[in-house]
């Protein structure tokens, strides 16, 4: 404990004398336990009465069955259910270990042929497993709170950055509904990510690298933020010194550190993929992990650039038909009228292929990655780069799910409690990003839950950050945009279902939500980039 204390404070450069006895401190555990218990009990209350289940619920049940009842060699070949195992091997092993607990609840859920099996015991087990594995997340948040810069002055517990950060992370609206109502194990996965980030903030880089490698082998979507990790570790860990102007000093390269890093990555990779390489199944596994047969956008368009692109295309085609410039018969038949916008074909604008999205993604994260190579700004610069990578891939990626926005929101929370500008961007991003998750829960009974939880989180984030930075964080335009979300919600969920168009054009609410939110997310992305490059500029300026 004492060792930790000294280390943490040397890393974040706060003289230990600032922590007074009797003053609220990050080392008290009472407030933290209250926050955790509150959220755990709330989620348990919610799921106790909640017996409907999403596709992801069946997906994970199927994976439990596959890993439990089949030999390892068949894991990535099994296709009884359409929800085949498409996560990396470590996650399969995670499901395998869960299945050993599951068999004490209900053995039937572990039979591959029992599609859509939902006994009360199954539901109870699945829900409890999410809550129990959330312990990783709870621990990680605690570690993050310890790494936050503390300013002296505020005496009230509620006004401390670490408290605000803990509340923002533990009570994160997106995580609550995606994990506990929709159903996924994001709490567990983001727990590992945040723990890895916290280790980097504390200067324990090897641990951070190990955790991230494990994370990559649990869910490969985190490949999107791997560039930030790779460059940061190479630049700031393998090179031990900088030149006076901040550029890299090539002579300070430490091969030992590189070897250490490399061996960590390779050994975890070998542990995970090794058995499948040995069985000669690597191509099969990879084809499951990267299915490019899916469309550009998910059924509900995630609020990114492609949503806007689709919208422009649609608008142009409608306009073209109206102005008699286009022939209706020649247009590709869009399946949008079905309510699900699965395979969307562009009629005017060129179609987008996976390789184009990949190039766009790489281009969008390039400046950020280059900036931490040229002017590393420590672990915080790395964190900013990580958020940019996550958001960049969300903006331009292939077949992005709306849930992926959490990958940017959660790490960004740490920056938001430390700087005023970031707090403003954070509020824009989280509010729009969280609102864009609303279509995940679409039944009438869920409407009050999602609205109440969203209000709870949004109100808290606004008032606490405003109090922390003593003043308004958003300009009038941004405020108006966010208030517009209320109008969109009322329009989409109250007014539109009562109107006659509900039957002829049921897809409009989703379309409006997606396009409106993508404006906000794009705006936040641009602002984030501006802040990053401006910092880069000021650093250069100082050097001159």
């Amino acid at each position: 404990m004492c060792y930790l204390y000294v280390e943490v404070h040397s890393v974040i450069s706060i003289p230990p004398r600032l922590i007074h006895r009797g003053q609220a401190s990050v080392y008290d555990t009472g407030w933290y336990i209250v926050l955790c218990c509150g959220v755990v009990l709330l989620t348990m209350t919610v799921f106790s009465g909640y017996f409907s289940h999403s596709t992801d619920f069946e997906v994970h049940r199927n994976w439990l069955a596959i890993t439990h009842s089949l030999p390892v060699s068949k894991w990535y070949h099994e296709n009884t259910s359409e929800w085949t195992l498409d996560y990396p091997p470590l996650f399969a092993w995670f499901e395998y270990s869960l299945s050993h607990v599951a068999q004490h609840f209900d053995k039937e859920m572990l039979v591959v042929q029992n599609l859509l099996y939902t006994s009360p015991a199954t539901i109870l087990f699945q829900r409890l497993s999410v809550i129990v594995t959330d312990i990783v997340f709870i621990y990680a948040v605690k570690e993050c709170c310890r790494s936050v810069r503390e300013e002296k002055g505020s005496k009230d517990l509620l006004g401390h950055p670490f408290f605000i950060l803990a509340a923002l992370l533990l009570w994160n609206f997106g995580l609550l509904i995606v994990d506990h109502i929709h159903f996924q194990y994001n709490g567990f996965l983001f727990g590992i990510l945040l723990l890895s980030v916290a280790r980097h903030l504390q200067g324990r880089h090897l641990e951070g690298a190990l955790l991230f490698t494990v994370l990559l082998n649990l869910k490969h979507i985190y490949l999107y933020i791997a560039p930030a990790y790779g460059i940061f570790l190479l630049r700031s860990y393998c090179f031990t010194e900088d030149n006076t102007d901040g550029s890299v000093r090539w002579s300070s390269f430490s091969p030992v550190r590189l070897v250490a890093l490399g061996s960590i990555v390779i050994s975890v990779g070998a542990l995970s993929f090794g058995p499948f390489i040995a069985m000669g199944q690597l191509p099969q596994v990879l084809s499951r992990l990267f299915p490019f047969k899916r469309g550009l956008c998910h059924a509900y368009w995630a609020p990114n650039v492609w949503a806007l692109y689709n919208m422009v295309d649609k608008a142009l085609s409608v306009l073209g038909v109206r102005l008699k410039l286009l022939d209706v018969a020649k247009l590709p038949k869009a399946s949008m009228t079905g309510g699900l916008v699965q395979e969307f074909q562009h009629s005017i604008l060129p179609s987008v292929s996976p390789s184009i999205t990949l190039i766009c993604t790489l281009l969008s994260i390039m400046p950020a990655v280059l900036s931490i190579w040229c002017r590393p700004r420590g672990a915080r610069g790395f964190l900013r780069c990580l958020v940019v990578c996550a958001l960049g891939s969300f903006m331009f990626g292939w077949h992005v799910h709306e849930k992926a926005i959490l990958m940017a929101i959660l790490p960004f929370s740490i920056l938001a409690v430390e700087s005023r500008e970031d707090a403003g961007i954070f509020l824009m991003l989280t509010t729009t990003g969280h609102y864009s998750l609303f279509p995940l829960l679409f039944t009438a009974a869920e409407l009050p839950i999602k609205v109440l939880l969203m209000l709870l989180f949004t109100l808290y984030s606004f008032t606490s950050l405003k109090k922390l930075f003593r003043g308004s964080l958003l300009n009038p335009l941004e405020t108006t945009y966010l208030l517009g979300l209320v109008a969109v919600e009322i329009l989409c969920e109250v007014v539109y279902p009562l109107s006659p168009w509900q039957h002829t054009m049921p897809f409009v609410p989703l379309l409006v939500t997606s396009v409106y939110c993508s404006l906000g997310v794009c705006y936040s992305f641009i602002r984030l980039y501006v802040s990053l490059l401006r910092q880069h500029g000021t650093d250069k300026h100082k050097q001159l």
Partner: protein
Amino acid sequence: MENWSLVSICVLFGLTARWAVSLNSYSGAGKPPMFGDYEAQRHWQEVTYNLPVHEWYFNTTDNNLNYWGLDYPPLTAYHSLLCAHVAKLINPDWVELHASRGHESYGHKLFMRATVLVADLLIYIPAVVLYSFYLSEGSNKKKVFLCILLYPGLILIDYGHFQYNSISLGLALWGVVVLGLGWDVLGSLAFVLSLNYKQMELYHSLPFFCYLLGKCFKQGLAGRGLFLLVKIAVTVLVTFALCWLPFLSDPGQILQVVHRLFPVGRGLFEDKVANTWCSLNVLIKIKTILSTDTQLYISLTTTLLAILPSSIKLLMKPTLWQFKLALVNSSLAFFLFSFQVHEKSILLPALPVCLLLNDLPLPAIWFLQASTFSMLPLFLKDGLLVPYVVTSLAFLFFSIYLLSALEHCSEDKLRLGPYRRLLICIVRRYGYLSNCINKDHFYFSITAMAGLSFMSVALAPPAQLPDLFPLLVSVFSYLHFLGLLLYFNIVQIAEPPQSVRKNQKKSN
């Protein structure tokens, strides 16, 4: 953070918990032919919407009183009528005469749950806000507020089992708040409305009466006191008259409504209730030995005896603090000794106990937990086990942590100092009561409750004693209630007449 945002966050938290509980099953779900309280409320909407007012309380061809006949006062009937009009707009099948009997559907459940939420939001929650921020002292206002909102008994009965207690209790709380702020006429108005929503509010009526009368005495019955008394009396009479207006034309109507409200024929108690008679019945079968009339007289006498001391004290000293204690003592005495008590009636004493959370944290939390526990058999019948466990844990955890309840159990904090001083001159060994309320006993009692809950769920009762666990739950809760009734009475009566408390200055 500013107050308003913290309050909104607390309210949102409370509402989320409420709606989450309401996703669960309700009483009598899928259990024909009688269903449960949910069907009763729906049936009242059907009856009030389709029948003329003068048939509401009468047995007619269209109104079978044996099938959930209306047995609440007129305001409940009007509320049902209002809900029925909304229901008719959404789906006419929900309130169609005869045809809708036993109607159950996803949409209808949502509608019914929403009506509870709306009523709660309009009546109960604002009253709690006002109470916590204007009438409770100290820095704990927001914490008390959150704890009152999270009281599991009310949430589980209203949003799980299905009733509209938040309206009657909310109106009574409005009465307390408004009286506390010094507006006596408005306070009596609010209380009369609450009484006209649910006749069980009679449990609270004596303290209201004594408080107001005591205030009139204090101002001098010859001058301003008399004027106040007349004002209050006129308010009460006019409010009553307005509520009962449609029934006033015919004395037969009034008698029938009154007869419906107080069904004396239903016996001393039903099911397993944590009160004296049910617990005594384990030892002596009073229900079979005594005639109904004797039972009625005995219960009336004991109830009167039990509420007399606190009422007299309140009459002598009409302050807010005394008033709150008298509300607890009176309603709890009614619950323990009166005729035809339901297990849900424990919510009536629970409301004023919530108001004591700030002043007497440990006894209040203890009582509230015991009251929730006493309704366990009901919750199990309704399939509310998980919400019961989760909300109880949440309440215990939050209230103990936020109010630092376990650190405030010295004799002074428990307001037993005056009692101790009184006792010095009497027999010493009776003083042990003040030692009863301490941490260890609290832990022991909570553990026992957890154990009994677990046994009720997991173990099958022996064949010859099928009601063993509900009975154990009742008797165990009864002991708590009796002990706490004694404690609250001592606190109220032992308060020395000359001590002037801060909030009294404010309220008078």
